[in-house]
């Protein structure tokens, strides 16, 4: 039979855990709500920039932009793995790292990692070439700080160090669904944005002159700069989505932890009551037995 004092101590410690996980869940929920609005705002902005790109893409004369140029197959590639800085969010980081490891086993590539959890993982796997890392970016994710990473990646692509750059991250679809996907950043694959396709577009669907825009200083210049901005935005929204997915996963993990703790408390309290009742019964029996013995003597 378990000791009453032991059970009491366990109940106390589980209650403490319950309080902590519940608080963490509340924090994650608040952060997730805030970030959700930010992601929605940024998505709207991205849509508008896409629209501008489509407009100017049709007018581009030079039809050459280094970011679109596909390189020869089998070239060197870089995989950017976006994980979280903090744990206690279920299998969020473990899944990402496993995914990345599988992917790299099939298609060897160098790795650039975002987030402490991913960094710690890849540091242990010395067979993978880790070329760079960014940690402690989440929580204060700003467009400017993403630009720094993107600037680095762009240079690596333009200088020919890498022939393709992809990102592995957790894509946010809805509150109930986040999936790990790989997205190619460079060279740009988005079909409607390709300046080369402008000829076909105008041939099949002639745009009336009056609807066209003027460009200052030229459509080419605007397009080139838009592409830079577009790429920065791509990475920004990826990081925001990853952070949002992290908070959602943490919220769910902490919710089930809180639930488990509460179940455990219930069953421990039940066990405690049983043991206590058993003790009282034994004591009464002893007293009754004692009284009986005195009476009969």
């Amino acid at each position: 039979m378990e000791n009453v004092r032991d059970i009491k101590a366990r109940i106390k410690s589980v209650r403490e855990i319950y309080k902590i996980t519940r608080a963490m869940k509340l924090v994650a929920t608040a952060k997730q709500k805030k970030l959700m609005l930010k992601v929605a705002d940024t998505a709207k902005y991205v849509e508008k920039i896409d629209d501008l790109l489509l407009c100017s893409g049709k007018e581009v004369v030079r039809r050459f932009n280094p970011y679109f140029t596909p390189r020869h197959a089998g070239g060197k590639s870089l995989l950017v793995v976006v994980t979280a800085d903090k744990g206690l969010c279920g299998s969020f980081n473990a899944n990402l790292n496993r995914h990345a490891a599988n992917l790299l086993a099939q298609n060897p590539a160098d790795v650039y990692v975002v987030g402490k959890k991913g960094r710690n993982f890849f540091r242990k796997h010395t067979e993978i070439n880790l070329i760079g890392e960014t940690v402690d970016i989440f929580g204060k994710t700003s467009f400017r700080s993403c630009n720094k990473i993107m600037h680095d990646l762009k240079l690596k692509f333009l200088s020919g160090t890498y022939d393709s750059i992809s990102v592995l991250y957790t894509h946010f679809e809805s509150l109930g669904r986040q999936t790990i996907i790989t997205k190619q950043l460079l060279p740009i694959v988005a079909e409607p944005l390709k300046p080369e396709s402008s000829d076909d577009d105008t041939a099949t669907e002639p745009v009336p002159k009056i609807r066209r825009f003027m460009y200052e200083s030229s459509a080419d210049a605007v397009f080139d700069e838009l592409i830079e901005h577009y790429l920065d935005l791509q990475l920004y929204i990826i990081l925001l989505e990853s952070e949002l997915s992290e908070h959602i996963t943490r919220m769910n993990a902490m919710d089930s932890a809180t639930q488990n703790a509460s179940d455990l408390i219930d069953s421990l309290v039940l066990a405690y009551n049983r043991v206590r009742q058993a003790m009282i019964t034994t004591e009464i029996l002893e007293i009754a037995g004692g009284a009986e013995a005195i009476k009969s003597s």
Partner: protein
Amino acid sequence: MSMLQVEIMTPDRKVAGFECEKVVVYGEDGFFTILPGHAKLISNVRISELVCSGISTPSGEKEPVGSYFVSGGFVKIEKDSVQFFTPSAERGDRIDLDRAEQARKRAVTVTQTATGGIDFDRAQAALERALVRLRIGQKFGRKPQ
């Protein structure tokens, strides 16, 4: 008289939305003024100050002149709607001058020590942003501490 519908947007939020009579923009080829009925135009914008005249805010207040800092980006003009897309923007009278001054000092240090490459380019851009912010802020009669 018709008015321009001006919106200033950054990736994070919409910084401002209002009606006004005239906007002066520093584009890739120099300054130009947008009046109602402007032709459809898409242009680059430099790190600069947007000067808007005859503003009426959605809450109904009137302001003769409004000033905004934009850190580059684009402007799209279509049917009296003027949309600015920029990495960051602030109202002229709400610029954090102390932060700008710190950014300026930081950028100067980097430009002096860096030999070139990414750091130098980034510091140069940061320096330009800081200087424009300081210039706009000082128009409003404030000084960094």
